[in-house]
């Protein structure tokens, strides 16, 4: 036993190296490559700002993920509350000194890059809640105190993001938090009642929405209501996807994006462009890559020894699944338009950073799967 542990410590680095999940890594690299080619297409077949910037970010954050993989999962456990508090502080900072772009205050200027704390919160709320429930005894999970406390953890950042205003991200933060609650074993009836409550209160919530948000809901229900105004995005997006057909129009031949009919093609609607150029086959393959990634993440959770690592991996995997599903449903006209990027594919540093930190922690859980946390 002692011998083994010494051996383990001595060859720690190589051992960890060998313990990396290479299937997950290669899937992430494939995704990175696909996102770069798609970005290249959005730039009209040239290496312009978006492609270059996306490439740099991908390389930096991917390396960062590898670095994180070698950091002991214990470190992330200990950092759970602190990181949450820091991001919360950043959100408050954003509220006062944020950069305003297209009508909402979402970014803070860190001199070398602009960061969007709300995107980071999507990951760190999982970390924070995972730590919270890791420490909790099973019989206390459904206690009034713990439910109240976890709900506060969710509601504070959510409301800070809503007032930016950024409905999409705040919903995703809330969903990430709720996923952790679900895995932590919160009684089903709470989910059932809160679902019922939110459906009943939906009309009241809608009356509190901003006019442009109300318009989005109405547009979702009937995109042809205002085809050149509010319904434009969703109609053009559906046209792009639909016209792609079975095999797609071919790389760099997506007329909808090339002729600038597609809105926000770099960010939220990147899947539309991908789907137009690579068709049904390409889209299903992309979905397959995402499915493998999510599967690997959950598998890592399954083999982890510590409850914290399990909870984090399951929740993170499920969150990625939710981001992908919401983004795709949105561009395919199944959900109203809310700002939600497609992980790794969409252009955007903060989203990429957050996702990569998440994968890094998952990878760290893999390399330290035998590690138990007290």
């Amino acid at each position: 036993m002692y011998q083994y542990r010494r051996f383990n410590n001595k060859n720690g680095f190589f051992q960890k190296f060998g313990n990396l999940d290479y299937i997950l890594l290669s899937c992430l690299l494939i995704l990175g490559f696909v996102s770069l080619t798609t970005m290249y297409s959005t730039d009209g077949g040239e290496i312009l700002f978006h492609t270059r910037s996306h490439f740099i970010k991908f390389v930096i954050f991917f390396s960062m993920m590898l670095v994180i993989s070698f950091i002991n999962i214990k470190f992330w456990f200990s950092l759970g509350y602190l990181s949450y508090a820091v991001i919360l502080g950043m959100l408050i900072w954003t509220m006062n000194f944020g950069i305003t772009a297209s009508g909402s205050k979402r970014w803070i200027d860190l001199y070398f890059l602009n960061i969007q704390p709300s995107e980071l919160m999507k990951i760190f709320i999982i970390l924070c809640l995972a730590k919270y429930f890791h420490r909790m005894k099973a019989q206390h999970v459904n206690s009034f105190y713990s439910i109240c406390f976890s709900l506060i953890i969710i509601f504070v950042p959510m409301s800070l993001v809503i007032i930016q205003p950024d409905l999409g991200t705040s919903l995703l933060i809330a969903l990430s938090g709720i996923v952790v609650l679900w895995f932590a074993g919160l009684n089903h009836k709470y989910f059932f009642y809160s679902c019922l409550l939110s459906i009943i209160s939906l009309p009241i919530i809608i009356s509190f929405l901003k006019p442009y948000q109300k318009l989005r809901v109405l547009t979702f229900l009937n995109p042809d209501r205002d085809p050149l105004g509010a319904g434009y995005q969703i109609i053009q997006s559906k046209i792009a996807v639909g016209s792609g057909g079975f095999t797609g129009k071919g790389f760099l031949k997506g007329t909808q994006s090339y002729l600038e009919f597609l809105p926000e093609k770099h960010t939220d609607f990147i899947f539309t462009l991908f789907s137009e150029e690579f068709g049904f086959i390409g889209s299903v393959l992309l979905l397959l890559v995402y499915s493998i990634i999510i599967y690997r993440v959950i598998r890592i959770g399954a083999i982890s020894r510590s409850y914290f690592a399990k909870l984090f991996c399951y929740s993170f995997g499920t969150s990625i699944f939710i981001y992908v599903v919401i983004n795709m449903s949105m561009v395919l006209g199944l959900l109203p338009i809310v700002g939600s990027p497609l992980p790794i594919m969409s252009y955007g540093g903060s989203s990429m950073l957050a996702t990569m930190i998440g994968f890094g922690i998952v990878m760290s859980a893999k390399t330290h799967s035998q590690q138990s946390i007290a």
Partner: protein
Amino acid sequence: MININISDSATKLNSLNRRMFILATAKIIILGGIVSRLFFLQVKENKKYLTLSDKNRIREWKLPPIRGEFQDYFGNTIAGNFEAYQLHIIPEEVEDFRYVIYRVKELLELSEKQFKKIVKKKNEIKPWETLIVADNLSWEKFSKINNHLYDLNGVKPVISISRDYPYKENFTHVLGYVSQANESDLLTNENIKEKFVPGLKVGKTGLEKSFEQKLIGSNSVERYEVNAYGRRISQLAFQKGDKGETIKLTIDTKIQELTNELLKEKAGSICVMDIYTGAIIAMHSSPSFDPNSFVFGISQDEWQLIRNNPMKPLVNKSLSGNYSPGSTIKPIVALSALENEIIKPDFTVQCKGHKNPLELYGQTYHCWKKEGHGFVNLREAMKQSCDTYFYEVARRLGVDRLSVTAKKFGLGQKVFKDVFENEKKGLVPNTEWKKNALGRNWVLGETIITGIGQGFIQTTPIQLCLMTAQIANGGYKIYPKIVANDDNQYADKFTPLYKKSRNIKIVQDAMFSSTNEVRGTSYRSRLDDPKYRFAGKTGTSQVKKITERDRELDLKTFQIPYEERDHALYVAFGPYKSPRYALSIIIEHGGSGGTVAAPLAKELFKMIVDRHEIRKNYDNKKYLDI
């Protein structure tokens, strides 16, 4: 109890794994949903979205179609096309509109008024619509613009095809004219709406309007790929449109020009018709105007001048002028009386002159001749146009029987059916009509004046021409036509309109005497050469009732105010030995038919008969070619 054995963390892990399993199932279902949505959009509905995507990116630009031409019988173009040099600006594509427009103003030497008009037009249209700055530039100005193009960003010199009427006012009333399509054109004609492009010219009157469907042709289409902002990226296709059909008319330009010449400075109409085929050889209404001035929009001053002219150049008198036929109706009255066996050719009436006029129920009916004609039979009465004779004939005949014959010979109905939308029907009255239209009973006095073509009866010049043609061809029904290859297949074509062909002969002979025998009303206008000799009937229709005072004054035509002067009419056919052509002449407020209208027929027949040879040869040659 059992709980004691199971550790706390194991409970947590159990619940975690169970919940993971539930969620994994849900995830697979949701993924399946997304894939099926993708399948629905990309495979099942692919066609629909592919068309929508093409609709997005492909935009078509229609170019104005090239209008079909009009040709006369000999293939001369009487309404053609020419290249007009134009200047177009699309305001959206111009960076500094103010600068460019002032520069253009300088170069084209536009007046302040024209300039204001252009600026006003610019404000009315949408920024992406074409603003036509100048529609018919001279070559000098056009090349000047081309030389300064480097300075005129967004200005497009365009060579466009436009209407040209080489014979100016000669064919105006036959062809009509074209002008910019306006809103009502678009509303009434689907075809125009479909082919509309800014600057499209459409027929406004006459044949140009009636044959719009055939003439308009089809648009050439340029297909471009455009981006979301409507900017053209690349041209994908050019689809050449068809030119409109060429329509060949039966008109002989030489004769048409002569009619214009003869009617110069007069208000009136001349119609010439082939008595067998019904082909219109010439049809002119005077005064006329130059249709070319309408093509690019007529100036207000010019328009007012045309509109306010008391001789009414805008009215096509040949088709829509309703005139009392006057004595030109007498052949029909005589024919009707003979056909109904009311009179025999040797029926005689004594015309006693103004001292002893016909008197009926307190009304007196005078012959035109003061001294009276004495005892006249039918032939003499036609020759000298004795009114008293025809009062008596009409009295015996009655208006109902007269109206039957008159209608049979084409009076009281449209000659060209729907070809000309401005054609009038005229009016052949009878007792029933008066009862229905005016609610009063017919009185005998009205029958009597109808006998000399006064009163209710109204005819158009083309009706009189058709009537004469049908008398001249021996009394057979014909259908007039103005389009050459319009072989009207009417079942009753060439059916006899008479009961006894001898009656037609008698009337023809009486008309012959009127022109070619001494004391005939148009004797002075006769042509002695048998080759050209023609037969005719004069008419002088009163515009206002002649009072006793007028009769005593017996003023000459030029002493009467223009508005109150008589209309001069003449109908004729020739050459008499083998008739081929019939004509009708009307000079509004010209005075007496014998002195004003008949001399024109003399000029016309000389040319008509000469041109007949050429026409015949042209026909034969055509057959040889086949």
